[in-house]
């Protein structure tokens, strides 16, 4: 408790964000006075957003020169007001630097830019590479090699990816596949501390990017398919010491639920739901892992994140709502105590993890200014929540959805289409979206200039078909065969611009053959950047969806674009290229695309990918 108090006092006194704490105070002041000035190199972050729609307020500074958090900002908008590159001149963009990391695995996540250095974490073996932005071609400054335990490779569910690092207190902090969190000195590239957060012997791995709030490093864990019990772990930013854990199943004490916990809906109220909504003991293998993104609202002092599917696939073996799987949480970042929770899907039968980004924005909602949480769900519904209370204000379908008809905003419950619920021996067809969701963890962006959220979406449906004999650890068994295929309309992916206020799509760019599996960046230049699995990196008009510029990278894109200002005062845009991940791993030579049920069923939806792109992870940087 003492430690927590001390941290909070320092945080409050400085009133700063870890991402900019390293800058000299004079420069910080200069940045504030200048507001949005593209000429100011390393201008860090800003709360000044020229051209923002009336009433739109972002709760934390957005990246304005640097990129120090995984999403750029705490609110997960992935918006930067930088506007040197804009709709008028974007066609002049060209490649100024690229760098191959020499690893044939999926390159997810995004680089960081701190001062005049760019940092990137590779897929396994999770090397951290620093590039010098002051020199032409951005040469390598150093490489840090953590040498994670190779056994983690065989355990990770879906390719050996990593979703990036965070900068805080002079350190680059990230997770390794073998479930350690490591802090590296941002200047020297030497390890400062390394802490074991999970145990690969139990099937636990980590792929997500941590965040740092007030000297507390926050990270989740992956491995629900192996019966891992999900939790959020908090570590001290300077020492790596574990401060607390908040579990997603078990007693209220384990889940860090106390007297301050006020869930909005009755279904989420009650004592020890993390035990009582399971059959006896089943919660111990309850899944509910955390492997997506964490947001933070400094005004409410709450972090937000979602949890994954419940453990034990067979829903018949876990009657009950299975709290707190597939739940959106609001917690105090220092104590870990829960403020509210909303379980999005009770008793999941479809593998709809809701670990997606939660974008925090204050804006007018039906005539009233409200504190919103935007959550484009794996379920195919675009959720708008009041982030002070957890009330669902809107849940509209943004892709073809058949598993549920709608959400009842009074009860918070989905109106489930029982024909689309799976049981052993009872098979269902045309379940939309498939288990890969209306989107996966791939992050959206929000522009305060348009009021649109830009969603990288999939359009895949699935059939649960007859049983097929299977074999694991010496035991034959029968498994449901999952076959995925393009949904209605025949296309596979779409970049969707969704008008938050009007709760509807305004434009979309369809991909006929592949899902959109790359993150999105919105900028003050009226632009939206994203990538395709074929390897095109694109700039799109944020208002109309017109493709204004595109360049082909060496492999399919599943990474997230960022923008920054170089030491030379120029604006740059950077993206990782390198096919892989759950859906993209079907491109790898080791995966046969003759078997439509392979790769947990995604091969059926991804048949064409091998003829389109090959593996090879690399960074691409564009400017004028």
């Amino acid at each position, binding site marked *: 408790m003492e430690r927590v108090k001390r941290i909070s006092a320092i945080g409050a006194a400085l009133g700063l964000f870890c991402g900019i704490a390293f800058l000299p105070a004079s420069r910080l002041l200069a940045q504030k006075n200048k507001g949005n000035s593209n000429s100011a190199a390393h201008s860090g972050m800003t709360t000044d957003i020229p051209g923002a729609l009336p009433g739109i307020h972002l709760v934390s500074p957005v990246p304005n020169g640097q990129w120090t958090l995984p999403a750029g900002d705490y609110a997960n908008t992935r918006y930067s007001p930088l506007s040197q590159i804009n709709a008028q001149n974007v066609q002049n963009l060209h490649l100024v630097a690229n760098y191959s990391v020499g690893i044939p695995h999926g390159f997810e996540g995004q680089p960081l830019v701190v001062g005049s250095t760019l940092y990137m974490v590779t897929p396994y073996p999770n090397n951290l590479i620093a590039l010098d932005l002051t020199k032409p071609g951005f040469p390598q400054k150093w490489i840090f090699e953590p040498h994670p335990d190779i056994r983690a490779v065989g355990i990770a569910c879906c390719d050996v990816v990593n979703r990036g690092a965070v900068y805080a207190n002079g350190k680059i902090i990230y997770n390794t596949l073998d479930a350690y969190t490591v802090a590296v000195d941002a200047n020297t590239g030497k390890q400062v501390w390394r802490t074991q957060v999970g145990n690969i012997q139990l099937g636990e791995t980590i792929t997500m990017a941590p965040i740092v709030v007030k000297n507390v490093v926050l990270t989740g864990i992956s491995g629900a398919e*192996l019966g891992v019990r999900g939790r959020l772990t908090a570590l001290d930013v300077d020492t790596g010491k574990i401060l607390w854990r908040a579990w997603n199943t078990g007693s209220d004490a384990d889940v860090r639920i106390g007297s301050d916990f006020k869930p909005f809906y009755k279904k989420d109220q009650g004592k020890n739901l993390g035990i009582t909504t399971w059959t006896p003991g089943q919660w111990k*293998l309850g899944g509910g892992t955390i492997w997506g993104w964490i947001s933070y609202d400094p005004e409410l002092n709450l972090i937000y994140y979602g949890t994954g599917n419940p453990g034990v696939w067979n829903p018949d073996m876990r009657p009950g709502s299975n709290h707190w799987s597939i739940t959106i949480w609001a917690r105090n970042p220092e104590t870990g105590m829960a403020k509210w929770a909303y379980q999005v899907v009770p008793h999941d039968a479809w593998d709809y993890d809701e670990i997606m980004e939660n974008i925090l924005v204050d804006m007018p909602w039906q005539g009233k200014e409200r504190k919103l949480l935007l959550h484009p769900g794996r379920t195919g519904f675009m959720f708008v929540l009041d982030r002070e209370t957890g009330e669902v204000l809107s849940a509209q379908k943004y892709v073809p959805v058949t598993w549920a008809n709608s959400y009842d905003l009074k009860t918070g419950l989905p109106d489930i289409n029982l024909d689309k619920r799976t049981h052993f021996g009872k098979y269902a067809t045309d379940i939309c979206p498939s288990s890969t969701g209306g989107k996966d963890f791939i992050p959206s962006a929000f522009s305060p200039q348009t009021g649109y959220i830009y969603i990288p979406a999939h359009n895949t449906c699935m059939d649960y078909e007859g049983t097929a004999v299977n074999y694991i650890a010496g035991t034959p*068994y029968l498994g449901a065969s999952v076959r995925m295929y393009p949904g209605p309309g025949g296309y596979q992916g779409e970049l969707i611009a969704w008008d938050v206020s009007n709760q509807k799509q305004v434009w979309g760019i369809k991909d006929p053959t592949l899902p959109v599996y790359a993150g999105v960046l919105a900028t003050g230049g009226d632009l939206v950047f994203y990538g395709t699995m074929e390897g095109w990196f694109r700039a799109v008009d944020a208002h109309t969806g017109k493709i204004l510029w595109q360049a082909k990278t060496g492999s399919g894109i599943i990474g997230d674009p960022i923008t920054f200002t170089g030491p030379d005062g120029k604006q740059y845009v950077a993206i990782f290229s390198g096919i892989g991940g759950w859906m993209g791993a079907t491109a790898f030579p080791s995966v046969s695309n003759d078997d439509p049920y392979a790769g947990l069923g995604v091969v059926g939806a991804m048949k064409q990918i091998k003829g389109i792109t090959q593996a090879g992870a690399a960074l691409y940087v564009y400017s004028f």
Partner: protein
Amino acid sequence: MFTVSKLAAMLLMGSATAAFAVTPLLRVCADPNNMPFSNQAQQGFENHLAQMVAGDLGMTVAYYWYPQRGKFFSKTLNAGKCDVVMEVPVGIPVASTTVPYYQSSYVFVSRHDRHLNLHSMDDPRLRQLRIGVHITGDEDSNLPPVNALTSRGIVNNLVGYSIYGKLSEKNPPSDLIQAVADKQVDVAIAWGPMAGYFAKHSAVPLDVTPVDVVLPNPEVPFTFAIAMGVRHGDTKLQQELNAEIERRRADIHRLLEAYDVPLLGPQSTVPMGY
């Protein structure tokens, strides 16, 4: 000059020993830690079977070790790391299978001192007993006993044991049998070969009885025919192994008996499983 002649000498030596060096390899993928099937010390019946087959075919066994988890076949056989997996159920879509060389079933395992003598999934005592079962995790599937029990409404008294167990322990799936000996559960329902072997080696006497086949409900078979698996299209090896199995059927039967594998019915060449 010296280096060139040395190189030539080495090449000559190489050709002189070629007859020894080019003994064809029987490349086998196996779990390094999963008795009674296989382990790295080659103590499992799959290891002995591989040795027998290789000897007969004039080959040398070369192992590629990989834990038998969700991605086993895509990371091993179908990634070209080996040419055969010694034990697969007939009908598995990820491999072509030989003729089966044995059939076994799921079994009830209980302490002998309990005298439970369980045979049927419809036994009313199953509604009260604590029942240990393996669970496979999130793979769109569960083991036949779980499906049979849950479809009878027997849910609250099930205790799940992750089939992956802990990698650091010996033979992770055997936790389930130990749980019976330790009275954590009253009965376990497990795959016969694993259960038979560990029941035999238990410090506490354990009873093993096959789960009766429920004819009206073939959706949930408890009996599986086991064969060797080769890559789809590798018909040459498949045929060689078929002939070998037919030749050695009696020896294979004795090998499996030595490992206390519960064997079912006549050693038919007709795939019975699913």
